[in-house]
């Protein structure tokens, strides 16, 4: 416990330096901005900024990128409540009751409770990370290649189970991602695999290109295919502070949302999106006010908004302790660490305590900034919402293109990204969820490396994965997860759940 306080003190020392405060502020503002704006999410934004972070020091870079992710959770709710469009995919469910509240002239309290719930959840999640990350990292330090391989299998299986739509397609997407990740020079033999003689490909397919093409460009194209239609409640936003009655009505929902969100964030495949859906569903089931859900119940705003912020933050736990990304945003954070020459994994905590604890402390600082800055700044965000998409998307494209070009200062990366834009568009049309692909892509080389090492150590005996207890446990969990989802009854329910969502 004492070491926790000294660690947190170290962290706050780092996070409160002028430079890091500035980058944290920049991160959360940018996060809120893209959270408010529909059509651009944290994945595209972080992908866009990755090349730029190369010029920063690692701690500032990661503090800023983390701020974008949880900042987006704050921003997303504003759009959901005022425009009935999720600014962020994780605020889809906030639209249901938030927009109804706005129509009843209660947009202010809805925005207020969303921000307050998010802040509370952010504080709790920060403490949870500080408490749970160190022991998990200790355990992870004992992991051998067999455990790592099984852990990745579990992570990927969980990601497919939680993906929308068809399970078989999701698994196929993981495999495709793993294969694409293997393109490039094989570290053991030095052979340039699947590069077709293109020298740029012998370094592997650029991660930024895949992420920005599949998520960024494909999203813009998909948005352009739909007509714009917005009705914004701007004049009625007054009196942001919820009444005492509102607090009485929603404190339990905030608590439940935070707890559920924190838990779901840690799970592989989890994160803000899953957390908000689950919290809304749970709340609708157990709240005394469930009859009012969908008609402007404040609980239906408080619970998912707390949950998505908690989930966004606790999803950093597997990243920081195991070096395993649980969702595409975390995959990008791994990319950011690698750009900086940091190998993600349990050793980060011991070798770079300033980075580790500085980042955790910055999350609390960032949340405080968000709640203090955002409530007064809400008028400005509303003005931004009035900007039509036909102005927004060329601007987004400009930043994306400059970002991609600057990776290697050649047209090749831009071309590659455009090509993945086509691929991403085809995925959307064929109803193939791209998130598992991204996870597979980042884990491909790691998985192969650990498989090779494990097999070398066991002299080619594949049973090693079942003989080591931790490895076996993880494989069993993965198997059970798959079995549960494949069970006919659950399968039907799962499909229904995603249709409803």
């Amino acid at each position, binding site marked *: 416990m004492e070491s926790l306080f000294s660690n947190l003190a170290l962290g706050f020392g780092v996070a409160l330096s002028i430079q890091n405060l500035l980058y944290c502020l920049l991160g959360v503002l940018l996060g809120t901005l893209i959270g408010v704006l529909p059509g651009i999410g944290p994945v595209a934004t972080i992908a866009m900024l990755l090349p*730029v972070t190369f*010029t920063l020091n690692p701690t500032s870079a990661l503090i800023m990128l983390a701020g974008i992710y949880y900042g987006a959770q704050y921003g997303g709710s504003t759009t959901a409540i005022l425009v009935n469009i999720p600014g962020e995919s994780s605020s889809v469910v906030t639209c249901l009751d938030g927009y109804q509240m706005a129509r009843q002239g209660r947009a202010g309290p809805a925005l207020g409770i969303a921000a307050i719930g998010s802040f509370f959840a952010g504080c709790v999640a920060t403490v949870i990370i500080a408490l749970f990350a160190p022991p998990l990292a200790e355990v992870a330090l004992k992991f051998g290649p067999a455990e790592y391989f099984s852990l990745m299998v579990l992570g990927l299986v969980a990601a497919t189970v939680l993906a929308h739509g*068809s399970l*078989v*397609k999701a*698994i*196929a997407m993981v*495999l*495709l991602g*793993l*294969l694409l990740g*293997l393109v490039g020079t*094989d570290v053991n*033999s030095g*052979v340039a*695999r*699947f590069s077709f003689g293109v020298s740029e490909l012998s370094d592997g397919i650029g991660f930024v290109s895949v992420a920005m093409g599949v998520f960024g*460009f494909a999203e*813009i*194209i998909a948005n*352009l*295919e739909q*007509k*714009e239609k917005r009705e914004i409640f701007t004049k009625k936003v007054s009196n942001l502070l919820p009444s005492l009655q509102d607090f009485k009505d929603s404190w339990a929902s905030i608590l439940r949302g935070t707890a559920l969100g924190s838990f779901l964030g840690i799970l592989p495949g989890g994160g803000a999106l899953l957390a908000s859906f689950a919290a809304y569903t749970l709340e609708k089931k157990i709240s005394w006010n469930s009859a009012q859900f969908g008609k402007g119940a404040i609980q239906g705003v408080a619970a998912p908004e707390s949950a998505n912020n908690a989930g966004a933050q606790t999803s950093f736990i597997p990243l920081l302790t195991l070096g395993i990304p649980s969702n595409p945003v975390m995959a990008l954070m791994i990319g950011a660490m690698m750009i900086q020459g940091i190998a993600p994994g349990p050793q980060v905590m011991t070798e770079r305590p300033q980075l580790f604890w500085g980042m955790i402390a910055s999350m609390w600082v960032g949340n405080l900034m968000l709640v203090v800055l955002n409530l007064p700044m809400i008028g400005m965000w509303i003005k931004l919402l009035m900007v039509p*998409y*036909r*102005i927004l*998307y*060329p*601007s987004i*494209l*400009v930043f994306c*293109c*400059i970002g*991609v*070009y*600057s990776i290697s*200062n050649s*047209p*090749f*990366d*831009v*071309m590659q990204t*455009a090509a993945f*834009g*086509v691929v991403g*568009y*085809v995925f959307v*049309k*064929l*109803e*193939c969820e791209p998130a598992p692909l991204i996870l597979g892509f980042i884990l491909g080389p790691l998985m*192969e490396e650990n*498989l*090779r090492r494990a*097999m*070398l150590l066991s*002299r*080619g005996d*594949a049973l090693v994965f079942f003989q080591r207890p931790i490895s076996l446990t993880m494989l069993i969990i993965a198997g059970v997860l798959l079995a549960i989802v494949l069970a006919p009854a659950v399968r039907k329910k799962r499909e229904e759940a995603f249709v409803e969502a």
Partner: protein
Amino acid sequence: MKITNGKDFWAGMMFVAFGLGFVWKAQDYAMGTSVRMGPAYFPTVLGGLLAVLGAAVLFRAFVTKIENPLHVFPFKIWRLVAGLALGAVAYYTQPGNAAGILLDTGHALIAGLAVGLMFAAFGERSLWVILFSVVIFGYVLKPLGLVAATVLLVFVSAWGGHEFKWKEVTILSVSLAIFAVLAFVKGLGLPMNVWPGIWE
């Protein structure tokens, strides 16, 4: 046999093609043994699995109750053929390092057009116009500089939307170009030409 779900059909085809493609290409490398895996081992296993799953998706396309038309997006074959032909031309006429700016720009235009045509094969105007604008940006940034590239990117991509207003797009492109130069070149110090190469 009738294809019920067109989306599954094409997705299955895609997975099978990728799976078999990776397996086939991996045979150029050493397989190794399970103790010392060669570069071909893991891709072969994964590719095989992918092909099997793809086949399962493909099979499902015939037996499922979910109905989707086979025509998922408007695919235009002649554009693909023209793009590939132009691409071949561009590939064999690459100018050397000593080539002048005119030759460079000309070649960049041909190559860009080739790629644009390939994208256009997948139909939907918004898709190919947006991606084409991105490709143009990538190609002209070096020879023409950041300002011209940004203006081009904004104009072409704006044309891919629903409405195109000359005045609005002009103002937008100029302000974005100014911002890009200030933020990325002056602020972050990215090494990029601001103006066309001949001027500097």
